[in-house]
């Protein structure tokens, strides 16, 4: 099974390797705009908890960017399933279909982490001050895993390309802004406050911010992320098996 996971990963890796420079350059645009607009521009007039806004902002950008990249890395799988039907090549091969799912998710996590590394370098260049620890990286990986799994599930179930776009608009975009990325969820009305705490991105933002500023991580948030990783993976297992029926 490990060999088959590597094969599924290998396919995405050679595509990424071929497009690495384009990938890196394109992934720099949004973070630079966020850092300039909200960090330098708007952020100069804002302080949060006595610190610079850019230090508050960077963990939020990391959370939302790793979410977007991991999810969108698997949108092409939708085309491979619906239009090109190239995933049938995996389903007629003597492999465990789960290895296909795991390989694809790992490749999307890799993309999310490369993108996160770019943001970390840019953030330091913009003068941000935060600490990276192994737990900080683990939280990022968990966040990438959750949204890679959601991306996989969406790509394997959604009927049309337009609906994939709608998923982005109605699910990911609101989360990008409301889940503790640009401002603290404490500022939200009570109902919204509790609602965003159900969502994984809020816990990622809070954890990254806490760990990055040298605070003690909230283990309940880590548990919530682990819960999402396991639940979403179970959905991926289900949908992969169903795809063969």
């Amino acid at each position, binding site marked *: 099974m490990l*060999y*088959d996971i590597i*094969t599924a990963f*290998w*396919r995405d890796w*050679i*595509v990424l390797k071929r497009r690495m420079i384009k990938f890196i350059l394109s992934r720099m645009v949004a973070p630079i705009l966020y850092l300039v607009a909200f960090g330098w521009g708007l952020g100069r007039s804002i302080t949060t908890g006595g610190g610079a806004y850019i230090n508050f902002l960077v963990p939020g950008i990391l959370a939302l960017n790793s979410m977007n990249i991991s999810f969108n890395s698997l949108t*092409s799988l939708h085309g*491979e399933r619906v239009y*090109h*039907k*190239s995933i*049938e*090549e*995996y*389903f*007629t*091969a*003597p*492999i*465990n279909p789960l290895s296909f799912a795991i390989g694809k998710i790992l490749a999307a996590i890799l993309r999310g982490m490369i993108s996160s590394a770019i943001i970390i370098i840019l953030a330091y260049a913009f003068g941000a001050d935060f600490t990276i620890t192994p737990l900080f990286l683990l939280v990022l990986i968990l966040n990438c895993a959750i949204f890679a799994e959601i991306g996989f599930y969406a790509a394997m179930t959604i009927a049309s390309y337009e609906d994939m776009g709608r998923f982005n608009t109605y699910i990911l975009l609101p989360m990008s802004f409301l889940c503790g990325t640009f401002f603290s969820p404490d500022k939200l009305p009570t109902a919204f406050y509790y609602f965003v705490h159900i969502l994984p991105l809020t816990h990622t933002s809070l954890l990254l911010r806490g760990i990055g500023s040298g605070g003690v991580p909230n283990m309940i948030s880590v548990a919530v992320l682990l819960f999402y990783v396991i639940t979403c993976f179970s959905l991926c297992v289900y949908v992969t098996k169903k795809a*063969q*029926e």
Partner: protein
Amino acid sequence: MLCLEGVRKVFPYKNAAGKDDLKVAVAGLDLQINKGEIFGLLGPNGAGKTTIIRMLTLLTKPTAGKIYYDDLDTAIAAKQIKQLIGVVPQHINFDQDLTVGENMQLHGRLHHIPAKKRKIIIDKLLNYVELTDRINDNVRALSGGMKRRLLIVRALMHEPDILFLDEPTVALDPQVRRRIWDLIRKMQRSGVTIVLTTHYIEEAEALCDRVAIMNKGRLIALDTPQALQQKIGSYVVEWDNEKTEREFKIFHSKDEAKTFADNLFQENILRRHANLEDVFVELTGRRVNK
């Protein structure tokens, strides 16, 4: 031997009134395909050919019935069976982001062919279909005929015992079609059992040892192309009727056909040998290419 016992496939769908309904794609099929033969599934669009191929290649499960590869049951031994079969789908399903060589590499990896052997096989097969110089090109850059040839040799990489070809020459010009026929014959000579679907009569006649004629999910005839033709008669007289529609009648003897034609006072009379299209029309009242 490949054996289908009472295989049935039903798909749920929304009918014209928007209500849930069931469409019978394959209705209780019993069939045996022998080792080393070229077996054709012939029928018009919607006859159930592709659904049968998808069930045989484990891409979809039968609603009822059993499929055996020798003594291996598809419901139990899917992984073992997948090692025995090669699949050439109707839809060109290459990975569009990969080159010719990478698509072959991916197939080899998925079938656990060791790296060294993989390289040798890829070189040999690409040379066989004259695509060696295209190894580093993206698959999107290939012509339709090249893609079809590549699909076939990709399916041969892991040396399958049975090769399934779903409409292998659809939308190809006659010259390329004949090259693919040659390729299929060569594969049969090397011991591969071939199951192909087609709605080209001449393809079934040129290639198949036996033909199953399908219509609306049902098997309506099964035999060698020659035997099927002989059953209905070998000689055909065609003519235009009063509404200038083409009509025909089939005869068992040449003399009968000649006498009939000589006494026919109609336009555009043609005498010819019977073919599988005639068998199909005689049995179903439909034409295969519709």
